């Protein structure tokens, strides 16, 4: 017991000077509202690295590196493969990923491999390629092949990405980063995790959330389409009939 206490004390002594920094950060917005003219939104991340509360030193010493990981709401996604059968290309194989992030962008202040080791990147789940979780029913090999393809497709669509010059240092300890959320990024809650690295080790971290949601008329339409589908359908038909009739009246057909 005493040995354990000593070991803990020793570890604390070792660790505490390393974790003497803290991160003060702020998002430019915590709610992105989708209105009829919504065409994506730019988010700015600000942050400053400061001495931890209660730490003895009055300033922090770098050089620091910043990595920001922005994750979107999880969705069930399916990846499908086409093969040629009887001269026609048909989807013949698929793997379902139950909880796959709909959005995954990594911004960093330098090359990730210069910032830290591949092990840390893997443990902290920082790389876009590390996203697919293995699906039992599909088997390890197949799900890793399809997962890789899914990540590639998401990257092509702009949902996944890595920008190794995405974070700019304004001074030795303050940084800013910009991210443009595309208009087809799904609504939901997003998580921005910021990691501060020094000499390949994480010295501070912080997670902040922001929400993307439809408001006003767009929200009304989306909610009625899912909760009152029958009324919504009748409204669609009524609008169609009215528009058609009006067109006939205006143009005297």
């Amino acid at each position, binding site marked *: 017991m005493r040995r354990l206490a000593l070991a803990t004390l020793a570890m604390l002594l070792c660790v505490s000077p390393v974790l003497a920094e803290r991160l003060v950060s702020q998002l430019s917005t915590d709610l992105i509202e*989708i*209105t*009829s*003219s*919504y*065409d*994506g939104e730019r988010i700015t991340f600000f942050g400053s690295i400061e001495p931890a509360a209660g730490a003895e030193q009055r300033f922090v010493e770098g050089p620091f590196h910043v990595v920001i990981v922005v994750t979107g709401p999880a*969705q*069930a*996604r*399916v*990846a*499908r*493969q*086409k*093969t*040629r059968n009887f*001269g*026609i*290309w*048909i*989807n013949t194989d*698929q793997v*379902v990923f139950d909880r796959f992030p*709909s959005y995954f962008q990594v911004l960093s202040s330098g090359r990730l491999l210069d910032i830290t080791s591949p092990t840390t990147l893997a443990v902290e789940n920082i790389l876009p390629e590390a996203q697919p979780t293995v699906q039992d029913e599909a088997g390890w090999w197949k799900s890793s092949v*399809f997962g890789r*393809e*899914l990540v*590639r*497709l998401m990257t092509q669509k702009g949902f996944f990405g890595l920008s190794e010059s995405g974070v700019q240092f304004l001074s030795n300890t303050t940084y800013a980063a910009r991210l443009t959320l595309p*208009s*087809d990024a*799904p*609504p939901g809650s997003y998580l921005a995790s910021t990691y501060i690295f020094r000499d390949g080790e994480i010295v501070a971290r912080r997670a902040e959330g922001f929400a993307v949601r*439809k408001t006003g008329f*767009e*929200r009304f*339409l*989306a909610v009625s*389409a*899912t909760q009152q*589908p*029958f009324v*919504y*359908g*009748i*409204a*669609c*038909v009524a*609008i*169609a*009939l009215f*528009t*058609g*009739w*009006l*067109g*006939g009246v205006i*143009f005297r*057909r």
Partner: protein
Amino acid sequence: MQIYLPIAELSVNLFFLIGIGGAVGFLSGLFGVGGGFLLTPLLIFSGVPASVAVASVTGQVVAASTSGALSHYRRGGIDMHLAMYLVLSGILGAFGGVAAFSILRALGQLDLFIALGFLVLLGSVGTLMMIESVNSIVKQRRGVVVRERQAHQHNWIHGLPWRVRFKKSRLYISVLPVLGIGTIIGFLGSLLGVGGGFIMVPALVYLLRVPGNMVIGTSLLQVVAMMGATTILHAVQSQSVDILLAFCLMIGGVAGAQFGASANKYLRGEQLRALLAILVLAVAIRFGLSLVLTPTDVFSMAVIGPGGAR
């Protein structure tokens, strides 16, 4: 100007939507077809998810056919009795079509069946129209008098049981082919997002021998009622009707159709049909190529779930 489509969950240029609505409306006014067979593929090719495109175009087809149906109704060009049979069987077919739509989407084969359906349907209709119009153009060049087919000629269809008298069309025929045509068009129309006027009109003319002054009006009324029901079914079943998308297309379509209808006067019937045949065949070939050519990417992805449009 970008506009955000709340169901498709993407933002599209408003003028692009009204533009393709108008262009397709112009062609539909010119040729007297609904235009769904052009609009659905155009939307799919421009990045709108296939399920949203199909479901929203059904709403647009209702609007595009309403003004025509109304004007035919005023002129007395609709056989209500015949239309009732077609509509009821059409709605029955639409139930099947929407159910098949959901199953195929879950299986990941929706795009394949939409492409196959358009290929077979448009390919065969386009080829038939092409042959017919080229024949009549050639005959006219040679100076042969083209005789209209006789409306009251009987064929095997007139020998079927359960005959019903359709007074306005002056027909006394079995209800079986009528219900059959309605069901098939309801099924295909709801699966592919087309009104089916381009199958309905030839079917009424050549199979049932409905007189020419009743054909267009009855077919239009059937399209309005059946596609109206299909829109509601899609809204309930797949929740992929985008009212904003449909409305933008409607505005363009209704306006474009008027210009198309006036341009109609400058072209002759056979020429019109030949042009329409070329258009129909072009869409069919486009779908055919997408099936046969090696795709740029053999992998594709989709979201699963009620809002799963992509």
